[in-house]
């Protein structure tokens, strides 16, 4: 019998683990599994309906042929929208892949074991790379699929379109995954040359430069002028550059939707070549530079931390007024968070996106003179901020209890109740996220010149959503705690993380709906034939939102606490 290849052994072990994981679902409560599955289906269905409605509206909006060219403005906008979304997704995947690669290639516990085995660094890289590509791209596949299916139905695409998507997405996702891996490998290789601080500065300059570039592009948009649609389409046109892999994917999608598989072949071929070259290049590079980077990182971990003493001192002062045991728990959580670049860099990225959004917003625009536009923009602001908040709490707060890991017995045996541990994580989360989200809401409201009532409603919605989503994340994080796993990306990818994300999104939809109704009450009242007086709707809306937030926060916390209290250590 021929010898087994190490790569085959790794993939076989991974597929067996996935199978055992699925089988272990049988041991989970049926209610839990049913709730998660149903919620996932509902989220998918909700997104599908929403995207379907939006794409349908675009077709109606620009359905008639324009001028002598005979093409539909709706098709033009849809095409450019697809290209822009694909390009944005491409860069998001590059960033998330570089962080996930850092975690799976350099930080995961199994890395040390694999490196003592006689497998080359290229084999090792390939074995880990596919896992990191999967971890960094599954969520976008889940959230992107309703959009593409809705698009297929609107475009009356043939069955080959849906089959083609199964090939296009993995090929497309491999390209940013490979690029992200190359960035991570190169950054770690530069560690001995630049040092930790130098690397941090280089990363900040790189990401900052990217944000400035994007801001420059977006600044060209002016929703207030009559030419805004034209300008918007012009800016979106840059996403259609033929050299962009995202555009190859979009071209293949559009051709398949139009029922021309032969025309889809060239962009599909380009995707295939780019994915192969990208993965090949990353693999070759890993063979050269992975080990020096890994070895240098071990040095950083073992070396003395310059400035760590003074930063610890500052942090101690900040948490000083807190009573024990909260002080020690908060101190520990912030310190561990700060020492894990994969954690704080993603946190910064989320707020970077929000800050970019706020910075791009114009201080004055003729569009802001219209109450309707102001209300709509304020509502979209709020929704975007809250959606990012939902992602944040799922990504960072949900795994916090699980990340206590094998040290959870320390908390289990200490004279601290699980209620106190949950309370500490809840308020730490609420404070960390509210600071940023309230500030950004305030800044955007100021820029939009909203009236006091609208500012108040926006701030109130953001504040209660912070509490609800933090409670939901800590509660479900306790209920689905996985103390065996130390990779937050994997913890979040499980059943509990999925449920948390879905319920968070559902809460955001409800909260945004209430906010929208209050900000546009005149329209709503006219449509429903109600009084335009705001007292009762505001009291009912905000009161109902508060009640919903309290239930969303405290029910999962209670369920989670019950589970933690039953744990054996």
């Amino acid at each position, binding site marked *: 019998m021929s010898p087994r290849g190490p790569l085959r052994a790794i993939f076989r072990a991974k597929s067996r683990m996935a199978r055992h994981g699925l089988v272990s679902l049988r041991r989970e409560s049926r209610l839990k599994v049913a709730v998660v599955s149903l919620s996932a289906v509902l989220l998918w269905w909700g997104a599908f309906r929403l995207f379907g409605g939006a794409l349908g509206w675009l077709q109606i909006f620009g359905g008639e042929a324009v001028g002598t060219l005979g093409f539909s403005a709706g098709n033009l906008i849809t095409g450019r929208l697809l290209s822009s979304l694909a390009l944005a997704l491409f860069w998001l995947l590059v960033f998330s892949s570089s962080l996930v690669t850092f975690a799976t290639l350099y930080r995961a516990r199994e890395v040390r074991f694999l490196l003592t085995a006689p497998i080359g660094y290229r084999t090792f890289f390939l074995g880990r790379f596919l896992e990191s590509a999967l971890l960094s791209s599954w969520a976008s596949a889940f959230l992107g699929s309703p959009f593409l299916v809705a698009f297929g139905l609107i475009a009356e695409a043939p069955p080959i379109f849906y089959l083609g998507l199964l090939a296009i997405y993995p090929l497309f996702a491999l390209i940013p995954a490979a690029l992200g891996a190359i960035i991570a490998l190169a950054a770690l290789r530069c560690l001995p040359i630049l040092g930790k601080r130098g690397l941090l500065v280089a990363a900040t300059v790189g990401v900052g430069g990217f944000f400035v570039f994007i801001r420059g592009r977006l600044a060209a948009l002016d929703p207030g002028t009559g030419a805004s649609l034209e300008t918007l389409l012009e800016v979106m046109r840059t996403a259609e550059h033929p050299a962009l892999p995202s555009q190859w994917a979009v071209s293949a999608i559009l051709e398949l939707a139009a029922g021309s598989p032969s025309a889809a072949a060239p962009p599909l071929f380009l995707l295939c070549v780019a994915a192969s070259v990208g993965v090949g290049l990353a693999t070759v590079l890993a063979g050269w530079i992975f080990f020096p980077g890994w070895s240098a990182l071990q*040095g950083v971990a073992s070396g003395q931390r310059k400035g760590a003493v003074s930063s610890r001192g500052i942090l101690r002062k900040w948490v000083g007024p807190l009573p024990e045991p909260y002080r020690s728990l908060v101190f520990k959580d912030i310190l561990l968070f700060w020492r894990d670049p994969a954690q704080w860099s993603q946190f910064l990225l989320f707020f970077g996106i929000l800050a970019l959004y706020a910075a791009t917003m114009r201080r004055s625009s003729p569009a802001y003179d219209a109450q309707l536009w102001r209300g709509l923009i304020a509502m979209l602001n709020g929704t975007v901020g809250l959606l990012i908040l939902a992602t944040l709490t799922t990504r960072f707060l949900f795994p916090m209890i699980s990340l206590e890991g094998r040290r959870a017995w320390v908390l289990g045996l200490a004279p601290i109740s699980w209620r106190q541990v949950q309370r500490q994580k809840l308020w730490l989360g609420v404070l960390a996220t509210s600071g940023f989200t309230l500030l950004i809401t305030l800044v955007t409201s100021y820029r939009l010149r909203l009236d006091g009532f609208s500012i108040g409603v926006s701030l109130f919605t953001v504040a209660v959503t912070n509490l609800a989503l933090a409670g939901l994340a800590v509660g479900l994080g306790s209920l689905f705690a996985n103390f065996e796993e130390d990779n937050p990306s994997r913890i979040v990818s499980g059943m509990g993380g999925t449920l948390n994300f879905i319920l968070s999104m559902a809460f955001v939809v409800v909260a945004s709906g209430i906010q929208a109704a209050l900000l546009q009450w005149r329209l709503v009242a006219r449509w429903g034939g109600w009084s335009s007086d705001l007292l009762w709707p505001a009291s009912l809306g905000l009161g109902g939102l508060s009640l919903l937030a309290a239930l969303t926060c405290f029910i999962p916390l209670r369920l989670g606490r019950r589970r933690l209290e039953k744990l054996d250590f």
Partner: protein
Amino acid sequence: MIRVEQLSKAFGPKTAVSELDLEVEVGEFFCFLGPNGAGKTTTIKMLTGLLRPTSGQAWVAGFDLQTQPLEAKRRIGYIPDHPFLYPRLTGWEWMEFVAGLYRMPAERWRPRAEELLETFELSAETDQLVEHYSHGMRQKLSFASTFLHEPQAVIVDEPWVGLDPKNIHRVKAFLKQQAQLGLTIFMSTHSLTIAEELADRVGIIHQGRLRHLGTVDEIKALASHPGSLENVFLELTQDEG
């Protein structure tokens, strides 16, 4: 079997291991002793290919760990203090996975795996997921898988964590038997009584430098007062100044 020449490792300004020279013969049971932070783990990481030395060279079975790492690793078995195992694999699947990493054909690894699992009293649990194993069982599975590919040299870092006295006795007997069969063992431990019992030679590292090297009797003779290896170790590793 294991040869180290002028091996050094510095982490920034801190030198963890400094100009280490050492040779461990085929079939020798070598114990590497030293207080916490002396440089034992750093040395082991360099010998297993987990760390790149700042200077110097290391060979295992004649293969340079820098230039021929795969050849060297093929001949090494490594047992860390806290072994890694995939919790969602069964014991048998773990053995199969390790066999795959070492490119072992089925006709070679299957009988060997059965024999080792029998030796470490895990045969009855091979179909259970590792996540259901106790710490001691995980440690024993790690031992069994380390010996699966019949290494020529085994590097062991504090292997007694989580083992009960019966299993410590079994592991000691197993290691001794393997050394008699020609296996080279390089063991880092804080258990001086076990080192005294098993070691053919002992090396004491302190503040990154190999301070003393010799048989247990030779090391004992270095102390101002004759006594157990523990007393001698404490005297030899007293901080200077």
